[in-house]
């Protein structure tokens, strides 16, 4: 999977699951604010990423990966 394919796939599944327009998901946007995640729905995002890419975000990863750009990088490095 190329980085571009990863980004397209990530945006697609995140937009569908959290019911936002794909256009609001940009590399610099804050994940929690954009997807309106609280501590519980954050669990759903972690599960979605793991189900989609087989990459698991652990507790410390979740707190350091704040933007979609950081998330793409995190996933890409572990594919």
């Amino acid at each position, binding site marked *: 999977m190329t980085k571009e394919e990863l980004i397209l796939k990530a945006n697609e599944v995140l937009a569908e*699951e959290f019911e936002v327009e794909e256009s609001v998901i940009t590399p610099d946007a804050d994940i929690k604010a954009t997807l309106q995640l609280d501590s519980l*729905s954050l669990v*759903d995002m*972690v*599960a979605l990423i*793991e*189900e989609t890419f087989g990459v*698991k975000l652990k507790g410390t990863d979740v707190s350091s990966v704040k933007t979609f750009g950081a998330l793409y990088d995190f996933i890409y490095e572990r594919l």
Partner: protein
Amino acid sequence: MNRVVITGMGIYSCLGKNLEEVRQSLYDGRSGIIFDPARKEMGFRSALTAFLEEPDLKKELSRAQRVYMPQQAKFAYVATVEALRNAHIDQDYLDNNIVGLLYGNDSSADPVVAAVDKMREKKDTTLCGAGAIFQSMNSTVTMNLDCIFKLKGINLTVSGACASGSHAIGLGALLIQNGLQDMVVCGGAQEVNPFSIGSFDGISAFSTRENEPTKASRPFDRDRDGLVPGGGAATVILESYENAVRRGAPIIGEVLGYGFSANGDHISSPNVDGPIRSLQMALQRAGVDRREIGYINAHATSTHVGDTNEAKAIYSVFGDQKTEVTSTKSQTGHEMWMAGASEVIYSMLMMKNDFIAANLNFENPDEDSAKLLIPSKRVEKHFDTFLSNSFGFGGTNATLIVRNM
């Protein structure tokens, strides 16, 4: 003691998605039972079930609200929206008053199975998702409704097997009678999916009349061979008479009596003595003579021993008094945790519209049902007071008496 009145009702059942659709189905004698081929493939002894669609709440509730709701909570949401609307209660009222919530529910199998499947397959609990725990608990209906409607009074699920909905209404009435709550949203909800009742099917409790789905649920009929599982949700708004008058609410009925008892006997086989005590207690607490009861909505689920023992109990209390007795389960199947609440609403709809729905498929009585007046055709009749029975596994019994207002 405060008088307890009903000021709103709402329902989502196999007979319709709102009160008007359900009223019409009751009047027409329409059955909500189908044959579900998927259950046969899963190894069910009987693939009969009530059919109802899961409501799509995407436009009404946010993802953050929906993700914690299993099927029966969605049913209950739709029913409660209708009940609150009919009671003329808006969010502003709920925000500024202490309103309680008591709802009958006694399982949430589908989310439990989904989470366990995920754990077994992936060996990673995170993949169960955030909604799983909240969907899986018996109290899922009350926790979801309470957070959605921002209710601030009692918040409690009543798990009393197939009498859950009746007990919820009865307990809500007691809280209001004793001045502990001015208003309580009461009801019952029942999930409709194979996992929730597969083990119930396994004890041979269900009718196997699969070639005639609409004839399978035949309470009191000599040739009945078991119940048909159903579900949905039903909500009634209970409040003190004073509160209802103060806010100019539409008062449509009064909960006169709540009787309850336990059999102290077998876990699945009902007896006669327990239901008799429930009936007598309801009549005594209602302060009405049995001759004032114009209609009896029986628990009768279409099982041999259940219907027989209920017929004996009713005859023991009412004797040769010829009051119409029917089981609306002949149309809906057994709505289990929901049944006590839905059957109050079915009875209310009949009372308000001057008819008694037919006890479908009552073709031949048995020795005990022959002693009761069980109409197999719709009866056009005005009545002002009804009694509704609900009995459950473990021998839990509840009887409600409601008067027209």
